[in-house]
């Protein structure tokens, strides 16, 4: 690790002023950043510890939750209101990493964790356009089992590895940001960029901005919701594919639906086309298959991950059948 200094500001104003300085990087739990510094992927000159910022989880007027950026992943998963109103969020967080890591990891850090692409994480011997713009991408022709089938570009097919963010995407979460120009709220749907020809630019945050909170609106779909993750071992592994789904049913038809996927795209993938196809229709395997065909029509799998297309279709159908099945 290259030497760095350490600061712990007490307010988000101070943190944002520090974040704007060259070489300064915000530190949450450190479970991703410290690892990347040790691997030589990141070399900040100053770490700005933002865990003293709000970690409260507050119920908002009219329902909905406001979760402080420094809230630990485990605290969110265990919170009674999250478990009762947004079970898919609890379940998604609990599907990620290990208990130790969830105790350390913050909500903001989870949102901004970097890809687990082996080539991104190997500065000594691999080419990566995300790590070093213009250097090439070794994943395209390399080991790409864990890589994207949707949303990738000829320059980068790395996935966003988070479980939590897949549920947040399905729940229409909003990201609260603070910077020198003031505060603003960005829908999570507009927070991440797709790689295109600049895979090193991952979000729409400005220099000096930081996340202060995540807002989850009240949602009828939150209640009847689920998260399922398919991986190479039963636990403590990143997703091959994952599905976050919430539905509301009326007289046997799908009144409304939220659907998002993990492990298959550079950002948590909101399945708007599949949602539109299913909304107002029957909850049958045929309807689900047709909806997934529509969503995945533009899928571009690589040599090592073509199986994800079918795996995602089946996992989605399994989750939806469970959610829409008989329960009065």
């Amino acid at each position: 690790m290259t030497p760095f200094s350490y600061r712990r500001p007490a307010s988000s104003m101070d943190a944002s002023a520090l974040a704007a300085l060259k070489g300064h990087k915000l530190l949450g739990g450190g479970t991703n950043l410290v690892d990347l510094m040790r691997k030589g992927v990141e070399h900040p000159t100053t770490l700005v510890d933002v865990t003293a910022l709000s970690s409260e989880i507050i119920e908002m007027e009219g329902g909905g939750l406001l979760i402080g950026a420094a809230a630990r992943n485990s605290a969110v998963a265990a919170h009674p209101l999250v478990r009762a109103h947004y079970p898919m969020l609890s379940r998604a967080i609990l599907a990620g990493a290990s208990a130790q890591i969830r105790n350390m990891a913050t909500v903001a850090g989870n949102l901004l964790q970097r890809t687990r692409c082996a080539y991104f994480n190997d500065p000594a011997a691999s080419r990566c356009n995300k790590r070093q713009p213009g250097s090439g991408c070794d994943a395209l022709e390399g080991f790409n089992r864990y890589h994207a089938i949707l949303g990738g570009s000829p320059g980068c097919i790395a996935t966003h590895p988070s479980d939590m963010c897949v549920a947040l995407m399905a729940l229409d979460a909003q990201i609260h940001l603070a910077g020198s120009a003031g505060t603003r709220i960005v829908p999570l749907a507009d927070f991440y960029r797709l790689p295109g020809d600049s895979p090193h630019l991952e979000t729409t945050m400005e220099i000096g901005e930081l996340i202060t909170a995540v807002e989850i609106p009240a949602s009828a779909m939150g209640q009847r919701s689920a998260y399922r993750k398919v991986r190479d071992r039963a636990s403590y592994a990143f997703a091959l594919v994952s599905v976050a789904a919430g539905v509301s049913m009326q007289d046997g038809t799908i009144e409304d639906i939220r659907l998002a996927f993990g492990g298959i795209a550079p950002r948590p993938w909101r399945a708007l086309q599949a949602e539109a196809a299913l909304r107002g229709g029957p909850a049958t395997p045929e309807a689900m298959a047709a909806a997934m065909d529509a969503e995945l029509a533009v899928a571009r799998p690589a040599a090592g991950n073509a199986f994800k297309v079918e795996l995602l279709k089946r996992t989605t159908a399994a989750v939806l059948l469970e959610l829409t099945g008989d329960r009065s």
Partner: protein
Amino acid sequence: MAIRINGNEVAIPDDPRVSLADLLREQLHLTGTKIGCNQGACGACTVLIDGERVLSCLTLAVQADGRAVTTIEGLSSEGSPHPLQSAFIEHDGFQCGYCTPGQICAAAAMLRGVADGMPSYVTADLGERAILSPEEVRERMSGNLCRCGAHNGIVEAILQVAKEDVA
């Protein structure tokens, strides 16, 4: 700036690069805490901070400023083994022993978490208090790998202590 480690005040190292694991092992010679992967993937370095399990390899010592750290050395009291230590011996919860301090620290915090109502990915109903089954123990302990494959003994040992705790 100081950390309370097993009840003793310890100064934070000047260089913020020092991890909590390195502080424990290299400077304080508390070598019960092991480093397996040094990248968050194995759990051998598990210690407790304010009673919660964390990975000391991914924690900078400076991040533990003002907090209380308990290592495997601090878990037993007055020379007599912690109930989990006895149960691991009784149920062959280890072979080489490298993962054991991390397993036992993790299990101690895990049992407290269950008592506090912490759910897991395999808890069927998130609205209910989880009942500790072998499946629950395996899921909740999945952050601690054992290269010797002593997992069956580990799960038995933990379930036995859980049962005694309730009794």
